[in-house]
């Protein structure tokens, strides 16, 4: 029976991401695994004393769009939790929605705590112009409106409100002969945060820096993920991803 299960697991499309997270409390293993099912996938996430089991489905509309949706149930330290999510786009509209509850967070796989939600809507007003509206809530509300204009690169301008008003500036474009993608976003005011990402193809590099002081640098080198940062305390996270077939 075990052999049959292992064979089914190996034959179906899937991915496994295993790692170790080190923070002030010591080192904790992290594990994410997903297995493709007819029309979707089943996945598990485990970190320390918290675990989640989820189901995700998807609807492909060919060149018109794609919609993914799902839900996960959680058990572990503090009690039960759960998250429902939907994201994707169809024609000129894209959305990302997430609503959940967990009594106790566990960074990095279960970062939010309490009741949390996020709704990000984007609408293509004109072929090269997209308006965005973001509402996010976890211990406080954040609202943000943006306009992204695509010329050769994509320029984003916006404003938001969290503990106070803030400005959003963004730039994303292809750089260099290898068409590497550089993505920069800066929020200044009520939220102070710089996010930078460079996508080189086989490797990707990430940097975040915020005030009050927190930040991280990370890289995906093929299937190996490395991240170090500071979030109330220093941390490091190393993981490796296997994908099959």
């Amino acid at each position, binding site marked *: 029976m075990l052999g049959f299960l292992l064979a089914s697991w190996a034959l179906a499309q899937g991915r496994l991401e295993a790692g170790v997270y080190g923070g002030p409390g010591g080192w904790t293993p992290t594990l994410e695994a997903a297995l493709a099912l007819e029309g979707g996938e089943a996945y598990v996430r485990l970190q320390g004393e918290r675990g989640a089991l989820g189901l995700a489905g998807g609807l492909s509309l*060919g*060149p018109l769009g794609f919609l993914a949706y799902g839900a996960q149930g959680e058990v572990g330290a503090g009690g039960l939790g759960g998250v429902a999510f939907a994201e994707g786009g169809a024609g*000129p509209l894209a959305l990302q929605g997430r609503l959940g509850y967990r009594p106790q967070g566990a960074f990095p796989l279960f970062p939010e705590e309490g009741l949390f939600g996020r709704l990000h809507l984007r609408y293509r007003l004109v072929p090269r112009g997209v308006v965005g509206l973001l509402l996010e809530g976890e211990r406080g509300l954040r609202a943000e409106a943006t306009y992204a204009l695509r010329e050769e690169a994509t320029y984003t301008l916006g404003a938001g409100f969290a503990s106070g008003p803030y400005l959003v500036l963004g730039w994303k474009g292809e750089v260099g002969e290898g068409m590497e993608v550089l993505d920069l976003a800066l929020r200044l005011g009520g939220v102070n945060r710089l996010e930078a990402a460079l996508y080189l193809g086989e490797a990707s590099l990430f940097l975040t820096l915020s005030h009050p002081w927190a930040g991280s640098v990370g890289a995906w080198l093929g299937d190996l993920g490395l991240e170090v940062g500071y979030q109330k305390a220093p941390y490091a996270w190393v993981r490796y991803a296997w994908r099959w077939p």
Partner: protein
Amino acid sequence: MRRAWLGLLALGVLALAQSVAEILDRVEKNLQDPWQAVVQGQVQGPSGPEEFRARVYALPKENLFRIEFLKPGSLEGNFTVVTEKEVWNYLYLTNQLVVSPKEKAQVQGLGFSPQGLGDLKALGERVSLRLAGEERLPEGVAWRLLGTAKEGQGFASLELYVLKADPRPLRFLFRDEAGKALADLRVVEFRRTPLRAQDLKRYPKDAQVVRR
């Protein structure tokens, strides 16, 4: 006498069927070298007829096709890549590349199958075509092929025009069950040109790849 008539009729049907196979074969042989073209016309969108324009790139020997959507505006920046085994749909708005096995790839809502625009032989496998005569079009005399789609194609019937002098498709007319035109598309700006597989398979390096 009746048998003889039936025999002649059967031979006629067979000859016409052979003609379609022969025409598709001629198109395939004529389009062996890399080529590109623009497909433009009208498609039936959710809110009525919409202008459609797409650039098609083809590397027939490698079974590789790329369709870049230019119009309607909601599709600009999206593209479809058809490989030997998979269909890749890149969605600009969500920056996702949705990869599906060819047999699972569906094109709902567009009213027709964009894969067929570049790969006529594959389209011929999903539609039962028959030769309905010849017609003079601005580009020259063309064969007029009519066909009924097999189930799940997103359209019920197809009218296809193939240029006789340089066998290649000139016009696709996709219709629904009621005979209403879902897409009326013409092939323009056709030219044979060197293309590289890596360019046809190119997608943004930050795109999220979703396998379905």
